[in-house]
C-alpha cells in the first residue's frame, strides 16, 4: 500500500506544531506590548485645549509655583483646577486683548466654565490622592514630567498599575526632599540618598488593593 502522505509531511507537521506555539507566544507578546504601548496608554499624548495654555511659559519661564493655580494639591485628593478668575488675575492686565485668550475672557464675561480636556486620566475605579503624595516627598514632576518644558500639556507616564506599583514597591527610587516637591526641574544630585529620605519620611506605601480601589 502506497503512502498516503508524502515524506515531507513529517517536517511540515513538526514545523507547524512548533510554529503554532511560536505564533501563540508571539500573539501574547504582541498583545502585551500593545497594551503597554503609548498608543494604548496615551503616554506622551498631547491633547488640544480650548486655550493653548503653556506650562513651559508659566512654570519654566515665569516661575509661577504649581500651587498658585492647583491650590488644593496639598490638602485634598484633587489638585484643583484654577477657576477662570485665577487666569484673569494677571490677564486682565497682561495680554488683555490677545485673541488667543478670548475664550478666557468670554468665560469670565458669560460665567461659563472653560472646558479643559483631561490629560492625566485615571480609570474611574482608581482613586488617587494628591495630598498623600506631595506631603511625603513625591514631586509633581515624578508623575507629570517636566511640565516646565511642555508648551502643551502631555501625559508624562503610562498611568498603568504597574507604573504606580513601581514606586509603591520601592519609593526610595523616586522620593525627593520635601522642599523640592514643587520644583519641576529637580534632578537627584550626587549626594541624594532616596533610601535615607524614605526612612526619614516614614514612607511605607501600601500595595493593598483598597489603597486605590474601593
Amino acid at each position: 500500500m502506497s503512502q498516503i502522505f508524502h515524506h515531507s509531511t513529517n517536517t511540515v507537521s513538526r514545523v507547524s506544531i512548533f510554529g503554532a506555539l511560536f505564533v501563540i507566544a508571539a500573539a501574547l507578546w504582541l498583545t502585551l506590548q500593545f497594551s503597554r504601548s503609548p498608543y494604548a496608554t496615551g503616554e506622551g499624548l498631547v491633547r488640544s485645549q480650548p486655550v493653548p495654555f503653556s506650562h513651559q511659559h508659566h512654570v519654566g519661564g515665569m516661575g509661577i509655583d504649581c500651587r498658585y493655580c492647583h491650590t488644593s494639591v496639598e490638602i485634598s485628593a484633587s489638585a484643583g483646577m484654577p477657576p477662570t478668575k485665577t487666569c484673569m488675575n494677571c490677564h486682565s492686565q497682561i495680554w488683555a486683548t490677545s485673541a488667543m485668550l478670548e475664550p478666557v475672557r468670554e468665560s469670565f464675561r458669560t460665567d461659563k466654565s472653560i472646558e479643559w480636556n483631561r490629560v492625566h486620566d485615571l480609570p474611574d475605579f482608581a482613586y488617587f490622592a494628591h495630598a498623600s503624595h506631595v506631603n511625603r516627598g513625591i514631586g509633581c514632576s515624578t508623575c507629570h514630567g517636566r511640565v516646565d518644558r511642555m508648551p502643551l500639556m502631555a501625559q508624562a507616564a503610562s498611568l498603568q498599575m504597574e507604573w504606580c506599583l513601581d514606586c509603591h514597591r520601592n519609593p526610595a527610587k523616586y522620593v525627593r526632599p520635601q522642599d523640592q516637591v514643587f520644583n519641576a526641574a529637580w534632578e537627584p544630585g550626587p549626594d541624594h540618598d532616596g533610601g535615607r529620605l524614605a526612612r526619614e519620611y516614614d514612607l511605607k506605601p501600601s500595595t493593598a488593593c483598597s489603597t486605590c480601589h474601593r
Partner: protein
Amino acid sequence: MSAPRDEMPDLSGLTRRMDSQDGRRFWQSLDEIQETPEFLAFLHREFPENASQFEDPAGRRQFLKIMGASMALAGLTGCTRQPEEKIVPFVRAPEDMIPGRPMFFATALVEGGYANGVLVESHMGRPTKIEGNPEHPGSLGATDARAQADILNLYDPDRSRTLTYLGDIRVWDDFVAGLRSALDAQRGAGGAGLRILTETITSPTLAAQMDSILKEFPAAKWHQWDPDGAHSARAGAVLAFGRPTDTRYDFTRANVVLTLDADFASAGPGRLRYIRDHASTRKLDGGRTSMSRLYSVESMPGLMGSQADHRLRLKPSDVEGFARALDAALGGDASAGKTWGAWLDPLAADLRANAGASIVMPGEYQTPAVHALAHAINARLGNVGKTVFHGTSAEARPIDQIASMRDLAYDMERGAVRLLVILGANPAFTAPADLDFARKMDRVPLRVHLGLYDDETAELCHWHVPQAHALESWGDARAYDGTVTIQQPLIAPLYPGCKSPHELLAAFSARPSVKGYDVVRDFWRAGGALGADFELGWRRALHDGVVPGSALVPGAVVPSGSAVAPVSPAASAVPGTPPPPPPSGGMEIAFRPDPSIGDGRFANNGWLQELPKPLTKLTWDNAAHMSPGTAKRLGVTLERTARGIQTDIVELQYRGRSVHAPAWIMPGHPDDTVTVHFGYGRRRAGRVGNNTGFDAYPLRTSDALWSGTGLEVAKTGERYTLACTQDHWSMESRDVVRAATLAEYQATPDYARKRSHEPPREMTMYPNYRYEGHAWGMSIDLNACVGCNACVVACQAENNIPVVGKQQVAMSREMHWLRIDRYYAGGANDPETYHQPMMCVHCENAPCEVVCPVAATVHSDEGLNDMVYNRCVGTRYCSNNCPYKVRRFNFFLYADFETTSLKLMRNPDVTVRSRGVMEKCTYCVQRINQAKMEATAAGRGLRDGDITTACQAACPAQAIVFGDINDKNSRVAKLKAEPRAYGVLSDLNTRPRTTYLGAVRNPNPRMPPIPAGEPIDETAAPQSAPGSAHDEAPAPGHP
C-alpha cells in the same frame, strides 16, 4: 429566664444543634424552630431555587444561543478606549470649597413637625449623605433610617416638578393672581371661607406667618393633621394638666423603666436621644456591673419590647386596665394586683424601690387615659423633675387634631369652605376614613396643595405647587426639647418652580414672591433672639445648627407634682375597673405607622421600601400581623416558595368597612388582635411606591385612631407572596448570638467567649501575618443595639448600594452590605428578641480569599478584606465559602446608570458597581483613606476617632465602634478586651476583626418566668378569655 429543654417537643434535631450552655436557643422564624422540610431545603441552598440557576421559560438552548452571540460581540466592547473626560473648573471659585473634600452644613430635617438636627455632606455643591449633628440635643450625632433615606427623596426623579392648575403647567405669578382673587373674595367675610391645613408645626417662622394671616382674616381657620401625630399624648396632657404639654424623659437617671405600649426607639420626636440615653444605662463596659431594667407592656412587638428584660404582651384595650391597676397598686390598693398579680406586684415593688429614679412611659398608641395615668404614676413615684419633665409644648399651636379634622370635614360638607390651602399634608390619603375627606373636598370651590409629590391630594386640588425639599429650602423647626434649628438649603431647588411652605404663605402677604431666606431671616432679625449682633448670631446659629438658649425650660410652665392631682378624678370618671371585654367573638385591630415608610410619605423611597422591617423582616409590603395562636385558629399558614413566602390573604372587616391584607404570623403578638401598618397602598406615590402593600387607612376612624374592637377576620382563600429576608443568609442557628442574665454575667463575665472553642493561632496552614501599623477592627455591643435599622440605610447611602425590587428580594438577592439579624429565644408566644448587625467581619483567615480564582478579594496589610471590583469575574465562589453570608452579588445591573438626578446623589468616593460583580462591607475604606490623607496633610498620625464608619456614625445607641486594634488605648481595643467580647463563628479559626459584646438582660428575680416553653402546637387553642390572658403567666409546672 431560661427555657427548660423539655418544653419544646419534637425538636430533637434542632435541640441538639442549638444546645447551648445557658439553655437559650435562638431561632429566626417559626419554620426554623419547627424544622419544616421547606426550611431545611431552603437552608441547604446557597440561594433559593432559581436564584442561582436559569429557569426562564425561554429555555436553556435559546438562552445559550443569545448569550453566544452577545458574548462574541461583548468581546469587541473590550476594545474601546477610555472616553475622554472634561475638567470644568469654576469661573469664580466659592470661598472655602476645596475640590475633593466634602463640606458639612448643619440643618434640620422635619418629621412629624419636629426637627432632627443633621449635618449634610456636600461634594462640590451636591448633598450626598446625611449625618447627625453632634451639637443638636435631639440627635447627638445620630440619625434614624428615614433621615438617612431622605437624601434619596431629594433626588427622587418622581418628585413633582411643575406648578399646575387642573393639570396644566402654570407659573408662580398665575398662581399668585389666582390665590389673590380668591382671597379678595374672602376679605369681606373676614376670611370665613378660608381654611389652611398643615401638618404639626413647630416652626416659629411659620407660626408667625400663620398668625399674621389669621390676623388679616380673623374668621379663617388653621387646621392641623398628622396621621402619625401625638394625638393621645396631647389629649392625655389636657386630661392631666388641663393644657397640652410635652413630657420629656431623662433615661440616664432612671434605674427602672416601664413602657406602656411605648416604643420610644421608633416613635416620637425625642427617640434618638432616648435610645442613646437608655443605651448608656445598659452598657457594661469599663468595669460597670449594674444596668437599668426595662419592663415593656406591648400590644405589638416593637423595638423596645425586644430590649426589655420583661415583656408583657397585652391586647391594646388591656393596657389601660394594667395602668389603672399599677396606679392603684402603687397607691397601696392591695386588691389592685388581682388581674395581673404575678406581674404587677414585683413591678410595683421595683418601681417603688426606685422612686425618683424610674420612668413610666405611656405610648402614643394608647388612650389619653393611659397618658394621664402614667403622669400620675410618675408624680406618685416622685419622678417628676428628676427623670420626667413636663413643659411647654414645642408645637406652635398644640390643638386636638382629630377635632380639628372633624371640624374641617364638617365645614366642607356644609359648603362653608371656599378656599382650602393644604401645606405638605396628604389628607386625601391619610384622613380618618369616617370623615370621608376626599369626597368632601369636592365641595370646596378652590383647593390649593403644596407637596413634594403629585399625590392623592394633589389630584383633587385645583392648584398644585411643587414643594422644595428640606435640603433645598430655608426654614426653622424645634426639636423634642424645644431647641430651634434654622434650616439652611444645601442646594438650589433641583426644579426651579419648587416653593417652601414659607414662600407659599408669603403669597398671602403684601410680598407674594419674597424668598424663603428673607422670610426666615426677617423673622429672626425682628425677634432679637439671636443676640445684639444679629449677623453674628445668625451665622453662629446656622453654623452650629442650633439657636442657643432656645430650648424650652422644663417645669417652667407646669408645676410638678401638685398639678398632676386632677388626674385622679379625671381617671376615675371612667370606671376604675378594667374596661369591659370586647364583644364576644370580636377581635381587636391596632393601627401603626409603617416602621419603614412611616405614614406613607416615604412610600416612593426605594431604600426604605427595601429595608427589612425591624422585627418582621418584610420588605416592599405591609401585612396584617397576628399571633401564632390566632393564625392557627384562622387557618392562616405561611409557605416558603422559591420566590418568596406565600401567605393567606385575609379580609379584615371593621365597622362596616373591609380591606384585604396578607397575613403575617408575628411571634410575641397578643392573641385575638390584628395589627396593621398604614402608609402602604398608595396610588400616586410614584413609580416605586405605587401599588405596594395594602391601604389600611380605610379602616382607621377618627374615634379609634390607634385601636378598636369589633374586627372580624376571615380567610379569603387567595394567596399572596411576601418578600421577607428573615431566613436569607441564615447561619443555621449556630451559636451566633450570645446572651446571659446580669447574674450570670456577674458570675461568669466571659460567658460569651467561653462558648467558642477558638483554635490556637498556630493551627493554620497559612503563615501567620504580623499586622504592624494599623489593624482595623470593630466592636458591636449587642446590649446597646435596638435594631432600629439606621445603620443599614446609612451604609446604603454611603456605599452607593442599589435597590433590587421585591421580586429580587424574594430570591435572596438584596444587596444590603449590612443586615440586622433578628433572633428569637424561647417560645413563639413570648420570645426574647435579639438584634445582631451582621456585615463582613474581615476575617484574618478569610475563607473567601483562598477560593477566588482571580484574586479579586485579597487581604490588605491593615487587615481589611479588600474587594476589587475591576478584577471580579463573578464566579461567586467567595460567597459560597463565606460562613457569615455577607457577600452580595450583582445578578443584574441593579445600579441605576441612567437617571440623571440619581447620579448627583452618589458618593463620589465609592465605585458604582456594575452587573456580575461581588461586593460587601469594606469597613468604609474610603473614609479610612480620606482620614489618612487628611492626617498626612496635617502632618500628624491618625488618632482614635478620626475614622467613623457610616454605620457607626448613624447609630443612636453607639453600639458600633470602629478603630485601630493595634492602638491599645483606642476605644475599640478596650472594648475587644472586655470579658463579654466574642467572635461569631470564631471556632472556624476565621479570626474575625468584627467582634460582638454579648447581650446581657437584667431580669427581676421576683418576676414570673417568661412562659417560654409553650409548645407551638398548643398555641392553636385561643388563649383564655380576653383581659385575663396573663392570669396564668406563671404556667403550671413552672418553678
